[in-house]
Structures are given as C-alpha cells and as structure tokens.
C-alpha cells in the first residue's frame, strides 16, 4: 500500500577529488514508499536546486538493475540492506517514517573520488582491458551450437556473466579487493571453450593488473558475495585461484 514518509538523509558531500568532504543533513519529506531510492534522491535534489544549492551528484543510468552504474553505501550496507538488489531497485518501502539514512560513496584507493557519491570505477575497465575478452577472427559467423557445451557449465558461465561491474564487492570488502569482480570475469570466459585458449595469459594479466591498480588482497571475508546485487558466488574466486595456479605455476606461458 502506498503511503508517504519523511526521512532524514545524512549524505557525503565532496566538491571534488582533492577537497575535504563531509556529511550534510537534508530532510526528504513526503516521499512515496513506491519510489526507488534514486527517485527519492531526485526529489531531494529538486528541492536543493529550488533552494539555490548544489544537487547531490550520484551515478545512475538504466535504473532497472542491469547497467551497474548506480551504487552507494546506505547505512553501512552496499546498495542498501536488501539482498541481491542494486540501489536503483531498492524501494522506499523498506524504510520507515522518521528514519535517518546515512549515504556514503564507495571507498577504495582504486576508486578515486569524483564528486559527492560519484567515484571513478574505470579501474574495472582496465582489468577487463588486461584480458577480459576473447580474440576471434572476423569472417562468417560460426554456426550456432557448433561447439557443444554442457548445460551445467553454461549455467555457471551465465551466473558469472551476471556481474554488472557495479563495484559493490570492492566497496564491501574490508580489504577493498576486486577479487569477486575479477573472478567473475575470469570465470565466465574460462568455463567456456571459446575462452580456453587465452585462459592462461588472461589469469596472469588480469590478476597483475588488479594488483597494480592498488586493490587490496582477498582474505576470504565473504562480504562481497553477501553484498553483490547479482549474488556472484565466491566459488568464482576459488576458480580464479585455480586458474592462477595453473597459469602461474604449471603452464608453459612464461
């Protein structure tokens, strides 16, 4: 049932990368519980604009949980407290009248601050560039289903491919490690025949790139898996570890 609630926001405001940021408090009044979290921020921003103040900067695009642009830490939880949900799909019905909601950006050295709740996640693109692809020759499209793939394997690859690159895993990890993201990308390719030829160099290159970008080291805290909006499993991290051992210790690649 729709009702309207009033909440108080404590939002991290920061004008730019190298200036000091801090929390600002804003009332969010008359918020329909049918609104998404981002729509609620839209309302607050409208009011801020009317008052002649700078609206809160935040990332978003599809607003339907598939693009991976949105994300913030809500009361200490990435994308809010609901399981398997992006911030754009979190609804105000999960909050009560009178709540105080603390909103912070992802925090990691590898994700430098841009403004307010916006951080620069291009480090993820660099990890992909390092090896998160397969090389194919151009030409006529190959016949569909010409390479048989077991249903179970296809399912696992699809589960890993569900990662939308939102960065919540890094934000949730006490070590700011990018292992869940990287392992999902390595897994989706390593599981399938098309990804096998480059599996070795991919595992080494992506792990090295991840380290170079100043992400932390995974210590199996499992917070990433718990916060991932696509519920990517840490069994992918174990697969990355296996791929890495194969590539780094027993492969012919130097």
């Amino acid at each position, binding site marked *: 049932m729709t009702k309207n609630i009033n909440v108080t926001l404590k939002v991290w405001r920061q004008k730019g990368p190298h200036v000091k940021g801090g929390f600002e408090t804003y009332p969010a009044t008359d918020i329909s519980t049918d609104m998404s979290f981002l729509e609620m921020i839209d309302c607050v921003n409208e009011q801020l604009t009317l008052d002649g103040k700078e609206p809160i900067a935040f990332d978003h695009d599809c607003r339907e949980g598939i693009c991976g642009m949105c994300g913030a*830490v809500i009361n*200490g939880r990435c994308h809010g407290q609901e399981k398997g949900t992006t911030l754009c799909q979190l609804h105000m019905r999960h909050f009560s009248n009178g709540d105080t909601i603390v909103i912070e950006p992802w925090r990691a050295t*590898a994700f430098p601050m841009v403004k307010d709740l916006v951080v620069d996640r291009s480090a993820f693109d660099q990890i992909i560039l390092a090896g998160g692809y397969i090389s194919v020759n151009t030409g006529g499209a190959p016949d569909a289903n010409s390479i048989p793939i077991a249903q179970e394997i296809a399912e696992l690859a699809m589960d890993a491919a569900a990662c939308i690159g939102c960065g919540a895993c890094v934000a*949730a990890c006490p070590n700011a490690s990018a292992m869940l993201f990287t392992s999902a990308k390595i897994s989706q390719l390593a599981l399938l025949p098309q990804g096998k030829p480059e599996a070795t160099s991919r595992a*080494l290159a992506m792990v090295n790139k991840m380290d170079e970008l100043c992400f932390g*080291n995974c210590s199996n805290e499992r917070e990433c898996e718990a916060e991932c909006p696509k519920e990517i499993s840490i069994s992918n991290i174990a697969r990355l*570890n296996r791929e890495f051992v194969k590539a780094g210790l027993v492969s012919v690649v130097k």
Partner: protein
Amino acid sequence: MNGLTNPMGTSVGKKLMMAVTGLGFCCFLTIHLAGNLTLYGGKDFFNSYVEHLHSLGPLVTLAELGLLFFALIHVLTGMLLFYQNYNARPARYSVNKRAGGRTLGSATMPYTGVILLLFVIFHLMNFHFVDKTNTTTFQLMSNAFASPVYIFIYTFAVIIAAIHVSHGLWSAFQTLGANHPKYTPFLRGLSIVFSVVIGIGLGFIPVYVSLLR
C-alpha cells in the same frame, strides 16, 4: 605474457603462501595437541613421550627448521598484506555493518596473528630455549603453571589461536581453489570443530597441570 612478474608476488600468490604455510601450522597444531594429550596419562607417560620425541634427533631439528621457515613466510607475508590492505582503503566508512560474510575470526586475523607471534616467542623461551639438564619438561610445566599469570597467558593465547584457525582452515582450502557445494559447508564446519578441539584440548592443559601439583 611477459615473464617479468613473479606469480608468487601477486595478491593471489601471497594468498597461496599464507594458505600453504597456514595449513602447515594446522598440521603442527594437531600433532602438538596429540603429543600434549599424553599429559592426561600422567607425569611419566608425558615425560616418556618427550624423550621419544627428542630421540628422533635430526628429524626434530628438520621439523623445527621447517616450521621456522614457514613462520617467516607466514608472518612477513601477513604483515605485507596488512599494510597493503590498509592502503587499499585508508578512508573508512562512517557506518560499518556486516552483510553476513565476516566472522569474529576473519575480522581479527592480523591482530590474532600478531598476538600469536608474541606468544610463540614467549612459549619457546619458556620451554625450548631453557637448560633442561637437571629437570624434566613436566617439571618445567609444573613450575610455570604454578603462577596464575602464566595460566592466564597460556589459556588466553590458546583461545586466540582457536579464533585464528576458525577462519584460517577453511580459508586456506578456498585459497587453494577447493570450493564445491559438496564439501565447502563441511570445510567451514570442520574449521569451527577444529578450533574448538584445539581451544579445549590445549586450553585445559595449564589448568590441569596446576591442579596436579
């Protein structure tokens, strides 16, 4: 792929080193516990176990050197990881909430680790680097655990060790790539059971020895 980067220097390589050495320590703890349980067979039984162990001579020295080597790797890598992980997020969140992944063990690994390092040094000074010509190991223990301070230190350290391995054991398997819906729940359970067994098995020894007096 360029041959410049040494796989063991990467984050995953360091994790592997922590896992392998950590599993080594879990084996050591098991043997140490099994040996120390001879205490419950009485003073002579325990002293004869110690004698038998020492009669292995060079094998014991070899094992000691192996453990020292493992300890160096585990401690130095652990410290490097702690430093790097801190640098990966120097700016903290103002609200911290667990999503259900973190446990007491996993959240305190570096701290319990440092306490264990200090304890191991203390423990070796008590029982290893001492003159044992005119005394038995049992006598040494009995003297040490006459003091409530020693009992407290030892019991506390064993609890810390139990917390450390409660995360360490299953985590090592995950790091080595062993994760499967069939046995991962079992491994997680095993970690807890192992930590409780170590905690109770070793933790009661100081109390028991002091009661024997």
